[in-house]
């Protein structure tokens, strides 16, 4: 059984298809049709819902998710809030502002925008949001009608308005609003501590182990099972490929997999830590991560997607592996045969093939703190700024001493069947002065490092040309006086 709250009301569910998405549960089982399906692939945000989770400080913290690719089991111990909770007068400030600013035309994407802005409003507590935060909040919500200007204006306006839900019903004296049930954080914490699982009549199941040993046991017993965390990619098997995933093991409740440990000499990030949860620690260590992470997926994706998923999925166009390879990160793998560590670079064997053994799982990723004279550059190139998959991602770690490159690792996404380094270009840089001539030589050397392919995102020629130019961009960015070298630095 799994237990959660929907719009203030408790639900305890069992015996249902563990592949059921939150969206299909809402729309088909509950016939709550305020939440819309736009793409069923997590790319348009029409299905955005807010999720309240208890924070250690006793309050509720709100995230958003694409309910189309979030499975019902992920709700255990959470408060699911949908637009259906916002149908009473007076309207919520984000609703009033959207009406006043003419922020809806056809209205189909609107509930998703409302829920993204609602979650931001809850977290901002009456404080204005920064422009960057507002844009990131809406980065996963597509609107085809308005061009976004009125929605941004509505967001700016609503953040500083206080929400006063309608007065209590004079007859029943019931709580004024379904979202104002007292001590929701306490109730959720109590729920979350109960064991959770779903089993369907078909025999398909969803297990939520809460410690490492339980996870190891499950993996030993069911080596064919699939691990599930944010399901931002896995759920596409269900919604796009129409596959059935009969055995799902959630890694969302294992403390070791969630931990982010910032020690004196290294940073260790649990495999089930979400992008938004590890982003602050990682960006403090290496600020180059922050702008890339603001463009990795959308905020909805970053609230759910995990580091372990991005690595374990072994996609050649995943954005985290190249910078982590450039930094020489190590993986800690765990499983029936015990623990082992492995340089991340050696983990990827071929297209979507990894060194992960049957029953094994990724526990964490570690990287060293920056040493003196070390530089990291991360450049993501895609057709669109928000929520797009990289055509090319270049990540360069260099140690620059007395005007020369003494060590470097260059790692790439989108250039080969796996995330790869470019040994020829690295050789062309190492021991050489950090100047234009060296950059030219290294850029030319890249031609021998890989043979990229042409696909819907870019041609092979473009990938090659851009890869060399990104090296040049890194060099230019270290020149004085500093010239802006990316369009995202500008405006």
């Amino acid at each position, binding site marked *: 059984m799994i237990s959660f709250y929907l719009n203030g009301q408790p639900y305890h569910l069992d015996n249902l298809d563990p592949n059921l998405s939150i969206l299909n549960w809402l729309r088909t089982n509950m016939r709550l*049709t305020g*939440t*819309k399906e*736009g*793409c*069923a*692939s997590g790319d*348009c945000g*029409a299905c955005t819902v807010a999720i309240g989770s208890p924070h250690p400080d006793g309050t509720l913290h709100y995230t958003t998710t694409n309910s189309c690719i979030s499975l019902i089991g992920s709700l255990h111990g959470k408060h699911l809030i949908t*637009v*259906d909770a*916002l*149908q009473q007068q007076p*309207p919520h400030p*984000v*609703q009033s502002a*959207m*009406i006043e600013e*003419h922020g*809806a*035309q*056809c*209205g*189909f*994407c*609107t509930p998703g925008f409302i829920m993204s802005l609602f979650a931001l409003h809850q977290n901002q507590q009456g404080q204005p949001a920064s422009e960057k935060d507002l*844009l990131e909040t809406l*980065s996963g*919500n*597509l*609107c*085809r*009608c*308005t*061009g*976004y*200007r*009125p929605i941004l204006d509505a967001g700016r306006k609503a953040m500083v308005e206080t929400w006063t839900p309608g007065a209590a019903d004079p007859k029943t004296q019931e709580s004024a609003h379904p979202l104002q049930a007292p001590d929701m954080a306490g109730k959720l914490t109590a729920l979350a501590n109960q064991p959770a699982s779903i089993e369907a009549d078909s025999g398909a199941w969803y297990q939520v182990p809460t410690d490492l040993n339980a996870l190891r046991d499950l993996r030993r017993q069911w080596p064919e099972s699939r691990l599930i965390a944010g399901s931002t990619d896995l759920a596409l098997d269900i919604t*796009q490929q129409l596959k059935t995933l009969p055995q799902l093991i959630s890694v969302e409740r294992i403390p070791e997999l969630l931990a982010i440990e910032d020690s004196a000499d290294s940073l260790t990030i649990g495999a089930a830590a979400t992008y938004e949860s590890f982003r602050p620690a990682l960006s403090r260590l290496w600020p180059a991560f922050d702008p890339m992470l603001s463009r990795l997926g959308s905020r909805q994706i970053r609230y759910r997607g995990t580091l372990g998923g991005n690595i374990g999925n072994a996609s050649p166009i995943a954005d985290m592996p190249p910078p982590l390879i450039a930094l020489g990160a190590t993986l800690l793998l765990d499983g029936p045969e015990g623990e082992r560590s492995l340089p991340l670079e050696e983990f990827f064997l071929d297209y979507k093939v990894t060194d992960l053994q049957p029953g094994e799982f990724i526990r964490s990723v570690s990287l060293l703190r920056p040493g003196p004279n070390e530089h990291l550059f991360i*450049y993501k190139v895609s*057709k*669109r*700024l*928000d929520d*797009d*998959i990289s*055509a090319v991602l270049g990540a360069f770690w260099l140690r620059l001493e007395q005007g020369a490159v003494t060590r470097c690792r260059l790692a790439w996404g989108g250039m080969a069947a796996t995330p790869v380094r470019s040994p020829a270009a690295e050789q062309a840089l190492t021991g050489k002065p950090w100047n234009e001539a060296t950059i030219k030589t290294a850029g030319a050397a890249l031609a021998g490092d890989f043979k990229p392919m042409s*696909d*819907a995102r*870019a041609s092979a020629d*473009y990938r090659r*040309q*851009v890869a060399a130019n990104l090296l*040049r961009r890194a060099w230019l960015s270290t020149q004085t006086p500093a*010239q*802006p*070298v990316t*369009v995202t630095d*500008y*405006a």
Partner: protein
Amino acid sequence: MRRLPVNSPAPNQSARHLAGASVAHDSAWKHVSGQARYIDDMPEPEGLLHAAVGHSAQAHARILSMDLEAVRSAPGVVAVVTADDVPGHIDIGPVFPGDSVLASGLVEHVGQPIFAVAATSHEAARKAARLARVEYEPLPARITIEQALAAQLFVRPSKTHLRGDPDAVLGQSEYRLQGSHHIGGQEHFYLEGQACLVEPTEDQGAFVHTSSQHPSEVQKLVAEVLGLPIHEVQAEVRRMGGGFGGKETQAAPLACVAALLVRATGRPVKYRLARADDMIQTGKRHDFLNQWDVSFNAAGEITAADISVSGRCGHSPDLSDAIVDRAMFHVDNAYFLPAARVTGHRCKTHTVSNTAFRGFGGPQGMMVSEQVMEDIARQLGKDPLDIRKANLYRPGRDTTQYGQTIEQHILPDLIEQLEKTSDYRQRRQAIRRFNAGSPVLKKGLALTPVKFGISFTAKHLNQAGALVHIYTDGSIHVNHGGTEMGQGLYIKVAQVVATAFQVDLSRVKVSATRTDKVPNTSPTAASSGSDLNGMAALDACEKILSGLVAFGAEHWKVPAEDIHFADNQVHLGDTAVDFADFVQAAYMHRVSLSSSGFYATPRIHFDHERGQGHPFLYYANGAACSEVIVDTLTGEYRVLRTDILHDVGRSLNPEIDRGQIEGGFIQGMGWLTMEELVYSDQGQLMTTGPATYKIPAVSDTPPDFRVDLLADSPNREATVFHSKAVGEPPLMLGISVWCALRDAAASITDYRYSPPLNAPATPEEVLRAVTASELWLASAMEVADE
């Protein structure tokens, strides 16, 4: 009956809700609270089944065999139908034949429906549809425009508009340029995918709830497929979650398939397309190959043009005849072509049949003259804006190549105004300075106009009906032939009706568009929604009003000319009566409180044989100035600022119009920049979802975005309260971004060279233009060295 003295203080301020007020969309609260119902949100009728279709996997092939056993025996499947099960017409081509409701024997594009399944759930139907075993004999497939041109394969005959003797002028001209470009197509990406719900009715008929811009066509085609008279089928559209042209003809095939399954099962059937199926199965904006040969004088004025536009129509005509017509009508955009030949080809390819999309071919045609303006400027060393201004239609140079005279010259002043308010000249200088000091990032700037012809070029479609009832409490109910897809048509028509009766907007309700309320409607398309339906509604109101005035004159014994409707009252000489009371009195005296209304656009005609006439009632105009920054290392870019000045006549609702302008601009920008449809050599669409097909997202909106409506500009034609159409024209304001990107690349050569830039100008395409500029500069410097 309450009688009020006329000199009592006006209780009104309701005037703010009449025509001209920026009232919120009538569904605004329902939109923001998730209570606006789309097809898939409707309560599901008892016994509902869900539909899916099996697709052709081949672009062009003969079907040798089709084994559907596994489909029939899949869990939840109730019925499977093929072309053999169609009782009536198999061909459901909207204008010309060529589209089969279900293909048999021959398939002509990947994704063409070949059978349909009804099952107990959406998932069961989709899973079952994938289980068919189909054997194909592949035939040669032509995928690209070039392949179709080489084979002379067209879905409709090519046409030519000719004025003067362009060949003679071209041959004698000192200044001449030739060129070509590819303009990509565009997926509509309405957020609500195609959907319908069909219920069986008595006498084997059907009631169709559809997300369609053209309910009358849905009605007609469903009736034809079922072999029934049209009156046995009714269609209803409350709202669409976006249309953009993609639900003009593309909704009907779904309804026809669902109706066949209703016929097979006797149960209601819902058919909604999953996003990938929608992108594979339904038509898009036509991509075009445009070619030109243009001569001009030393002042940069065009003296002659020979232009051909070739649209990729896909496997069937659909609306392509008129779409390529409109491309031909707009190759001039806002510029006078003294001698011209314009040829339009409707290329047949083995791809999905392309269809209407906001602008309807006009945008693709316009790209010709916008590129030519820049190329002339760079050849003459002038600012492109000066060349544009020199070529604008103006008195004396005011006849289009198809013979229509421009009667209202809006653009010269409008451009002048925008040039000032956008600080075009100062920014041009500032950009030169910036670029001189910035080796990697380059800025570009462009100010481009839009002149867009308003009226359906198929003359018979320029008609509309409406139905207005007043109930005895003074509340008013309106139906009209237009459909609501987010553009605010319902609120605009409600404002028109409230204005006609001078009552509060809250008294007026516009309800779902239904073929049994208003028959034989035209599609809500061609930007015509409020022009046509607003006038039809006004006609209905005027008919009711004339009865009411006659009644008032007789009953209150006042001359008709002393009766006025104002402030929710009827003023009869010295007496004022509450509107509701007046209506009640009229009812008691057996006066009709209901009327239909009708409108047909005057003045328009066109001789397609001669390619001459007056196809448009008027033109809508606007201009945009966009500034971009381009990364010359990767081709990535951002739009930094856009200024727009747009003419909507006397606006019915300025904020709704502004919404159309901003949204249209962003959609046009997306078409020309990031939205890239990629097909394999075998004709398979590779960009089948928002993961690979990127429409503009929130960060793509210019951080500095200034939009104004042209002030004091009532339409000179007798349109509804002298407003102007606004749906499509602003899309073409997005061309300013494409031109600005090209300007940034040209800046590398100090604007001496115009680099090629195909659309969409993805970062890859922009980098190609940058590289071409760098190579041109390198070779120019070599020449200089020698």
